[in-house]
């Protein structure tokens, strides 16, 4: 086991990528992801990581280079954020449909305009349906641990899919946190060498990313969907194996003080930790409140979510992105869909909060919970409410 070290989360992620012995990194720097790829460039330039570092001219090229690298069987990493994720958007679909095990850290950032370099989830929500496994992390340790796990999930023969590890821009990417780092040897024991089954090879020519006329396109998409859904079991297995090896366990849906709670708050990402302090405070005041946190966004953990919220009267979902002109919060929308068929389901109140880097404090969560209890189940509450907007 490595040492517990005070380290910036971005740098710790780069060290995890190096410990995982990545072969190729193709990336373009963009705030707030820059430190991740900058430090990887240093590690390669200094000879501390034996990898190809491809400095590209855009994120579109970064992901395109990753396609080629993963197709050749190389362990491949990149990172991006905000506008960068949008610029590589079309290539994200190609990576998943071609079943290429690329790992990408996304330091979630608001999308222009107005220009904001600060954190929210509008970048990733626009890339929700690209067919990648998508994990959300709440602190630096989780971001580092899940970077290691992501390689193992992505490269598993039954999965072979790209994986995004989401961490909130600035709130996580630029924090200096105490993180238990990895020895390279222990990571290499946990993570078998990448063995892509049909790599580009002049001795055995194959065609990848082909053209599919209408007679076969539906079959290709269904094969992809079955594969992404089935990856769920492997994701659980990798997290279990990681826990057995390193003592930190992860689940698709995490809960905090939900025992007997009549009202549940549901969050995703770094502000979950602030939400926990709000739950503690309300519990001390005798309120029956708990917290459910989504860790796995795709494939969506329908069953675990239903189980986690069963029995509660109110479910208050806080989104860090806004689906303009639509249902409001993307997470709330998914949660409502997951619960629609349940006879016994909590009333859902949906809030959008924390856009473009605005902090939600403990007190803020307490206000959201109070308002949520008031409006949950009332037909007149509308699709959602936005928290903290000045009138």
């Amino acid at each position: 086991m490595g040492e517990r070290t005070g380290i910036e989360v971005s740098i710790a992620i780069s060290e995890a990528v190096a410990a995982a012995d990545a072969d190729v990194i193709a990336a373009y720097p963009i705030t707030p992801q820059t430190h991740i790829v900058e430090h990887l460039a240093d590690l390669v330039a200094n000879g501390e990581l034996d990898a190809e570092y491809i400095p590209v001219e855009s994120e579109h090229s970064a992901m395109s280079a990753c396609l080629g690298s993963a197709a050749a069987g190389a362990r491949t990493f990149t990172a991006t954020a905000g506008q960068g994720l949008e610029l590589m958007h079309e290539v994200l679909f190609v990576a998943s449909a071609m079943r290429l095990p690329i790992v990408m850290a996304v330091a979630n950032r608001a999308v222009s305009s107005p220009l904001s370099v600060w954190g929210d989830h509008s970048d990733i929500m626009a890339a929700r349906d690209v067919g990648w496994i998508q994990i959300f992390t709440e602190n630096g340790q989780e971001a580092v641990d899940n970077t290691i796990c992501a390689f193992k999930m992505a490269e598993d023969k039954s999965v072979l899919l790209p994986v995004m590890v989401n961490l909130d821009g600035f709130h996580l990417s630029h924090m200096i946190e105490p993180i238990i780092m990895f020895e390279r040897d222990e990571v290499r024991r946990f993570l078998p060498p990448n063995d892509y089954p049909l790599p580009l090879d002049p001795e055995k020519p194959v065609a990848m990313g082909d053209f599919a006329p209408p007679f076969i396109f539906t079959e290709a998409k269904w094969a992809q969907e079955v594969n992404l859904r089935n990856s769920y079991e492997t994701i659980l297995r990798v997290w279990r194996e990681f826990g057995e090896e390193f003592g930190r366990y992860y689940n698709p849906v995490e809960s905090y003080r939900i025992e007997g709670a009549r009202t549940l708050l549901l969050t995703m990402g770094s502000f979950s930790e602030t939400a926990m302090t709000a739950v503690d405070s309300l519990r001390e005041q005798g309120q029956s409140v708990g917290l459910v946190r989504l860790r796995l966004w795709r494939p969506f953990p329908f069953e675990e979510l239903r189980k986690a919220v069963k029995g509660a009267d109110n479910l208050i979902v806080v989104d860090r992105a806004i689906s303009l002109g639509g249902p409001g919060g993307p997470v709330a929308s998914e949660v409502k869909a997951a619960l629609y068929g349940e006879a016994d389901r909590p009333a859902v109140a949906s809030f959008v909060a924390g856009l473009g880097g605005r902090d939600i404090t403990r007190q803020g969560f307490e206000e959201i919970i109070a308002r949520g209890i008031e409006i949950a189940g009332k037909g007149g509450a509308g699709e959602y409410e936005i928290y903290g907007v000045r009138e």
Partner: protein
Amino acid sequence: MSKPDNELTWRDLEIGGIVSTPGNTRLYRSGDWRSQKPEYEFSRCIKCGLCALYCPEACIGKNDEGYFTADLFYCKGCGICARECPVYVISMAEEAE
């Protein structure tokens, strides 16, 4: 692949739709897309082969007499050969079939 194309199921596809049999695009009849087809007046042909060079489908080849003709299994009827022929051998006629 052993089955006819329209009987393939999603389970028959290789990982990521990889095609592991080289050259099977040759089985794809892109000539189906054609709404016009080339017709030739070989008496004017100087056998320069410009039509073959310009053909985006690379489906024009020499016949036994040295004239250049399109393979209608692949020809999409784009008409570039007719446009580029310096001596107006090729004209595009409506594809009736």
